[in-house]
C-alpha cells in the first residue's frame, strides 16, 4: 500500500487496463468534477424517475448543499466545498478547469466487489447482468447490515418502508436500453454513462488532458489504486477528482469489509478451541 499523492498521480495514462477489476460488459458512471456546475439536475432527475420524496433537511449552511449525504431518498448528492483560503476566485487564465468552489455529484459506487452485497444476509442485494449492485425491494427485510458494510456510506434505511435503499443505476431503465436518469439529465456531461471498458480509457485521457492544462492534481478515484482498493477491485461508478478524496467526503483507500472475514473466523475458531481446552482443563474434576 502506498500513500496517495494526487499531485504525483495515482495512475498515469500508461497504466494498464487492469486498474479496475470490472467484469466484461460492466456498465457504470464516470463523474467528472471539473465539468460539474453544481446544478443538482442529477438529484432531481433521480428523484423524479425513482419517485423519491424530498428529504426536507432545511437550510444546512453547508454552502449550497442542503441534502448533505446519500440516503434512502437521495441517491445522487451534490457536494459543495468552498476553498478560498488560498486566495480568492479563479484567476489562473490558464484554461485550467477547477476552482476554489468544488462540486461533486456523489452516487453509489457499484463496487466491483461490494461490501453491501457481501453483507446482505437475505440475498436482497444482487449483482445484475450489467455488473451493477441493486437492492431487491421485494426481498430486503431491513436488517440494516448493508449500512455499515459500505465503506462509502451509501445504502440507508428508509423511515417509511423500513427497507434499505440506494441507487440502482436505473436498473429498470437499463433493462429497456435507456440511460440512467441522472446521466441523461446532466447538462454538462459531468456524469457520463457507458461501458467501463470505454469510460475508463476516456477518463484516463481526460486526466492526461487536465494535467496538460495545468491541473496537476487530477486523478481517477475508483480504480485499484485509489477508491477501489482493499479488495474492492475498482468502482463501476468512478470519479475524476482534483483534490484529496477526503475533501469530497470519500475515503482514500477503503477496504472491502469482508476481506478479513475468513481471518476473523479463524481467530475466533482458534479462540474457541482455546476456550474449549481451557474450559475442559479448568472444569475437570482433579
Amino acid at each position, binding site marked *: 500500500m502506498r500513500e496517495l499523492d494526487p499531485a504525483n498521480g495515482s495512475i498515469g495514462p500508461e497504466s494498464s487496463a487492469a486498474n479496475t477489476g470490472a467484469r466484461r460488459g460492466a456498465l457504470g458512471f464516470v463523474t467528472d468534477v471539473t465539468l460539474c456546475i453544481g446544478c443538482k*439536475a442529477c438529484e432531481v432527475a433521480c428523484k423524479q424517475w425513482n419517485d423519491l420524496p424530498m428529504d426536507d433537511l432545511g437550510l444546512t449552511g453547508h454552502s449550497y448543499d442542503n441534502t448533505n449525504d446519500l440516503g434512502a431518498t437521495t441517491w445522487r448528492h451534490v457536494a459543495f466545498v468552498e476553498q478560498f483560503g488560498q486566495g480568492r476566485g479563479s484567476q489562473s487564465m490558464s484554461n485550467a478547469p477547477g476552482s476554489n468552489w468544488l462540486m461533486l455529484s456523489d452516487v453509489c459506487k457499484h463496487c466491483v466487489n461490494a461490501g453491501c452485497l457481501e453483507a446482505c444476509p437475505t440475498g436482497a442485494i444482487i449483482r445484475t447482468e450489467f455488473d451493477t449492485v441493486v437492492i431487491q425491494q421485494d426481498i430486503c427485510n431491513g436488517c440494516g447490515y448493508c449500512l455499515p458494510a459500505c465503506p462509502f456510506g451509501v445504502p440507508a434505511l428508509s423511515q417509511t418502508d423500513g427497507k434499505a435503499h440506494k441507487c440502482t443505476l436505473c436498473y429498470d431503465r437499463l433493462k429497456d436500453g435507456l440511460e440512467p436518469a441522472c446521466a*441523461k*439529465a446532466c447538462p454538462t456531461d459531468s456524469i457520463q454513462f457507458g461501458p467501463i471498458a470505454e469510460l475508463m480509457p476516456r477518463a484516463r485521457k481526460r486526466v492526461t488532458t487536465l494535467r496538460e492544462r495545468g491541473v496537476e492534481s487530477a486523478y481517477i478515484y475508483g480504480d485499484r489504486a485509489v477508491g477501489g482498493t482493499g479488495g474492492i477491485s475498482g468502482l463501476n461508478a468512478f470519479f475524476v477528482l482534483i483534490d484529496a478524496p477526503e475533501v469530497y467526503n470519500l475515503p482514500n483507500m477503503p477496504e472491502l469489509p469482508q476481506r478479513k472475514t475468513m481471518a476473523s473466523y479463524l481467530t475466533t475458531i482458534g479462540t474457541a478451541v482455546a476456550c474449549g481446552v481451557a474450559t475442559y482443563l479448568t472444569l475437570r474434576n482433579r
Partner: protein
Amino acid sequence: MRLLKLLKQHVGMVPNPISDATREIRARTRGADVSISVCPYCAVGCSQLVYSKNGRVINIEGNDASPINGGTLCPKGAATFGLLTSPARVTTVKYRAPYGDRWEERPLEWAMERIAQRVKETRDAHFEEIAVDGTIVNRTLAIGHLGGATLDNEENYLIKKLFTAGLGIVAVENQARI
C-alpha cells in the same frame, strides 16, 4: 442438476439470488404515449418528452433529439413532472369575497361569468373614448394585466388582442420588464 444450480445460487461466498420480481423489472415508460413538449421554466427552450399512460403523465425527461439540450435538463426542468404533480397544486377555483376571511369553493362557470361581469362593470365605469385634447383614445386605465412570459406565444397574442385591441386595456405588462 437443478438442485445443484439452486445450491450454487443460494449458498456460497457471494450468492446472487435474483428474485422473480427483479427479472420482470422494466422501465415504466415502456408502452407509454409520448408527446414532445418544451420546458416551462427558463428561456433556453429545452425540449422534453412527456410520457403518459391512461391520460396521466408518468414521466418527463429531456428529448435527445433537441439541438439545444440533447436530452439534458437542469434541476427545474427535471422537476417539471414534480410541478405537474405537485402536492400543493390547486385544481379547483378559489374565490375570496371582498372583506372575506377565507377562500370559498366556486364552480368554474360561475367564476368565469362573474369575472366577465366585473370586467364589464369596471370598463364601463372607466372607459375613455376621447381624451381632453380631442384625440380618440378608446382606452381604460382601470384594468391591468400582468404576466405572459410563462405562457405561450399564442396566449400572449390572445391577451394583447382581447385586452388591448378588444377592451382598450393599455396597462398590459409581463415579466420582460422585471
